[in-house]
Each structure stands twice: as structure tokens, then as C-alpha cells.
């Protein structure tokens, strides 16, 4: 006697196949849903804003009059913010990652720090804003300038960069560092000549991705206090500033007063999206170019 009854199998066959197809559709729709929402958003933004983008819009100073308003100030603000964020996060982030991965003894201290870095990555960005407000704007008395904003943003992305750098360092095969130690290299020589070059593409990719987070973030800057209508261009890190997403925010909330502000906001969103897209594309190019050759 056979255990698998052919008749029974035949009877169930149709309902099994039906179930299979239904679920396939459900999963497909779930995927499509995200794509559709994204497409609607982008189309709406482009319809609203694309016609407003021109040279004047990109190079003009801010203005209350929609026809004359430009986002050069916000672009420069974002640029100066990066001037602070990039070196601070790279030095602190990569330094921390090197210490934790290569120097720290595996023990209580190391796992304590590790856990807290993971926790920090999950702290809401507004909390970083409050921290930055308290420390950089008030206690250190920088005021709401690029430096204060940049340091606050650095705190925000630091955990992400640390984790990304740690992962890249860990991915460097042990046999490479062993070969280096085996020839009498010191730890630092091995780190500098072997481990960092091999980990660099990963570190860069992670850094660029977290920088795009800093470029798009508003909440911490809202807390620090960014002027809604800042006319002069920032010329250095001790100047007051605004950034692209802040400008989007102010134009959006004021669009009930002046209708065209909504168009300006949409145009700025397009500029910001293009910028982020370029950054992410760079990250992907780096990752593919240097993909594991060992």
C-alpha cells in the first residue's frame, strides 16, 4: 500500500495551485505599491517644480518674492555643513572603528561601547538636535552657525559611519594581516598598509551613504534654529546658514500664504533628490569598482 494516495493528491492539486497564485499576486502588489507611491511622489514634485528650475533659481539669493527667490544660499549652507561633517565623521568614525576592531581587547569595555554605538544609531534625530543645541550652540556658545549644525549632524551620522567602517575592516581577510605581521610589521604598519587600503572602498561607501542622510536631515537643525529667511550667503563655518531641506520645510509651511512657495519647495526637492542620487550613484560605483579582489 502506498502512503501517497494519488487520488487525494489530484483532489488537492487545484486548491494548492490557487493558493500559490494568490500569494504570488499579493507579494507582487506589495512590491508595486511602494513603486507606485514613489512614482506618484516624483511625478507630482516634477510637475510642480521642474518648470521653476533655471539658472536664476540655482544662483539667486533668497527672497520673499517667488520670482526672484533662489537657493544658492541653501546650496552653500549644505556645502559648508559637509565641510564640517566629512572630516569630523571620517576622523572620529574611522578612528573609533579601527580602535574597536583592531586594538580594543575583546571584553566588557569593548562590548559595552559596541552596544551603545548600536543604540545611538537608533536615537531619534531630534534628540541629537537637543544635544547639539545644549552643547554647541549654548554651552560652547557657537550660536546657530555652520559649525554647531555640522557638529550636531556629525554626532547623528557618527554611529552609522562607525558601524559601516567596522564592517569593512572586519571584511578584510585575516590572511592578509597575518602575512603582514608574519614579516615583522607592527600593528600600525599593518593597519596603514594592508587593512585600511583594503577596507577603504567599504568605508567610503558607508560614509557617502551616511552623508546623504546628513544632507537630507532637518529635525536637528530645526532645534538648533535656522532662520526662515536668511539673505546673505554663508562664507565659512562660523556663519549663520540654511540648508536645502530646511528651505523646503519653510517654503512648504508658508505655501498657505504664497501659493508659489509650493512650487519653489518642489523645485528644491528636485535639486536635493538629484544631489542625493548622485551621491548614492558614487557610492555604488566605488563599491562595484573595488569589489573584493582577494
Amino acid at each position: 500500500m502506498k502512503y501517497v494516495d494519488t487520488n487525494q493528491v489530484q483532489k488537492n492539486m487545484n486548491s494548492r495551485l490557487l493558493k500559490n497564485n494568490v500569494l504570488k499576486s499579493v507579494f507582487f502588489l506589495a512590491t508595486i505599491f511602494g513603486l507606485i507611491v514613489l512614482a506618484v511622489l516624483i511625478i507630482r514634485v516634477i510637475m510642480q517644480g521642474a518648470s521653476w528650475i533655471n539658472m536664476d533659481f540655482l544662483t539667486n539669493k533668497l527672497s520673499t518674492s517667488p520670482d526672484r527667490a533662489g537657493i544658492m544660499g541653501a546650496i552653500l549652507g549644505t556645502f559648508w555643513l559637509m565641510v564640517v561633517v566629512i572630516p569630523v565623521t571620517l576622523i572620529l568614525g574611522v578612528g573609533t572603528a579601527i580602535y574597536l576592531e583592531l586594538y580594543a581587547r575583546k571584553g566588557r569595555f569593548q562590548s559595552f561601547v559596541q552596544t551603545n554605538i548600536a543604540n545611538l544609531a537608533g536615537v531619534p534625530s531630534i534628540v541629537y538636535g537637543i544635544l547639539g543645541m545644549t552643547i554647541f550652540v549654548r554651552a560652547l556658545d557657537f550660536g546657530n552657525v555652520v559649525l554647531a549644525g555640522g557638529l550636531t549632524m556629525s554626532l547623528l551620522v557618527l554611529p552609522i559611519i562607525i558601524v559601516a567602517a567596522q564592517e569593512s575592516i572586519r571584511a578584510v581577510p585575516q590572511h592578509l594581516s597575518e602575512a603582514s605581521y608574519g614579516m615583522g610589521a607592527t600593528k600600525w604598519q599593518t593597519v596603514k598598509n594592508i587593512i585600511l587600503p583594503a577596507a577603504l572602498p567599504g568605508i567610503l561607501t558607508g560614509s557617502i551613504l551616511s552623508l546623504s542622510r546628513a544632507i537630507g536631515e532637518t529635525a536637528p537643525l530645526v532645534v538648533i534654529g535656522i532662520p526662515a529667511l536668511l539673505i546673505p550667503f554663508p562664507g565659512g563655518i562660523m556663519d549663520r546658514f540654511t540648508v536645502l531641506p530646511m528651505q523646503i520645510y519653510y517654503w512648504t509651511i508658508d505655501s498657505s500664504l504664497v501659493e508659489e512657495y509650493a512650487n519653489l519647495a518642489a523645485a528644491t526637492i528636485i535639486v536635493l533628490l538629484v544631489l542625493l542620487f548622485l551621491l548614492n550613484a558614487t557610492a555604488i560605483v566605488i563599491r562595484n569598482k573595488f569589489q573584493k579582489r582577494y
Partner: protein
Amino acid sequence: MATLTKPKVNIKNHANTEQKSITETAATTKQNMNKKIVYDTKDLNLWYGETHALKDINLSIYEKEVTAIIGPSGCGKSTYLKTLNRMVELVPSVKTSGVITYKDKSILDKSFKVEDLRTRVGMVFQKPNPFPKSIYDNIAYGPKIHGIRNKKILDEIVEKSLRGASIWDEVKDRLKENAYGLSGGQQQRICIARCLAIEPDVILMDEPTSALDPKSTLRVEELIQELKKDYSIVIVTHNMQQAARISDRTAFFLNGEVVEYDETDTIFTNPADSRTEDYISGRFG
């Protein structure tokens, strides 16, 4: 040295070969008299955390000889080899007791500089592990980290080392190319050349041919025969034919202990311990 050869007589249990073996031991001892010892290991014990990986190891390694270490996998061959250049300390849980002297200096002392030791003792690994750099930079790496900056001197070292590893002719026109473009066998000889570039006295090799095809294996074996003229070589191998072919002296490890250590001919034709005989005749491992 006398203490080294004596226990072997004690542990032997082949009554019929005892007489012969004792005379042989005497002969060996006499022959060893004029051989210099590079490494002397006394009562070495090593633990990975709770795992007792090496137990009371006593072994002398002689200058300009090939010393083979054989034994089933997990018996501590790699661990012993890595103790000789203290690479084993990269594992944080490692603890050792006992003494290893390298040219009369006690190397397990914490005050002994590992960087110094590893400049005199090169290592070749199981899997060819060139750096993801050019062939030239691979070879120049060692001299550079030891402070040689002069381009002309580096060029000379690179050529000499590549010749020494008998791979110069194959790569002399592509020194700037990435070492990853080479075949596995060539990569392993690049690694040997890289090791020669620091001008060591001793070369430690951990199953250097286990990732290679038979032809490349043969080339590396020939190379080892060449290198023996200038270097003392310790080679771990799980291939007993290889040990028999290329080594002067063989140590048989089992469960972290040295069961038997003698001239290769003796180990393979007339082992004193039945476990050695079982192993080399393929009865286990």
C-alpha cells in the same frame, strides 16, 4: 640534545627493533653534534582557553635542514609552527608555558620583540596570500616596513628574492601587475619570495602546497630543496610522501604531543613508536 633523544628510546615498544634503534640513536646524536640548533623547544605547553593544544613539547630544529611536522589534523602542527614566530598570540585566549630559544634567545619572554623575531623568521601560509598589490610591491613590502626606501636597493631585493623563489623568469616583465593575476602555484612562490625579501634565517611553512595542483606542488618542493642550502626550513605537511621526499628530519605529532622525532629515513623506515608506524602506513589520520 641528549635529553631530546633519550625519551624516544624509552617510549619505544618494538622489542625486536630496540637494539638497532639504540645504535641508530647514538649515530644520530653523533651526527647532530656538528649541526647547529636554531630553535630549541623545552617543555612547551599551550592552551587555547581550556583547550590544551600542545603538551610538553621538546624539539630541536637544526640549521639548514628541512624539518617536517606531520600528524593528523587538529594535532597541533600549525599551533606549534605559529608558536615559533609567536603568531599564535593573535588568538587572545592563548597561554603558554615552557621555553623556546631561538639562537639562544628566549623568545616567549614578553620582553622579546616579536617584530624582531619575525624579521629573522619568515612564514609561508597554507593558502597563497599575496597582498592585493603589484608583484613588485608584494616583494618590496617587507624591506619597506623595515625602513628601506632606496629604490635601487629595493629593485635589487625584489629581483634577488624572485630569483630565489625561482619565479623571476615568469614575472620579470609584469612586476607592476597585480599578484592576483597569477596562478595559485605562482602566487605561492610569490609568497615565498616575499618572505625571502626580509632575508630571514628560518622559513616556517604551513602546508604550503595543500592548495596547489601536483605540478605546482612539485615546483615548490624543488624550491624548498634549493632554499635548504641557505635557510633552515620547518614545514608542516599532511602529505607523508612530501615529508619523506623533502625533509631531513620529521616530527610526528599526535593530540598535541610529539610522539616521535627523528631523521626522516628512520621515521619512515623504522619508526620507534607503533603509533608512528600506524600513521605513516595510513592506518589512521
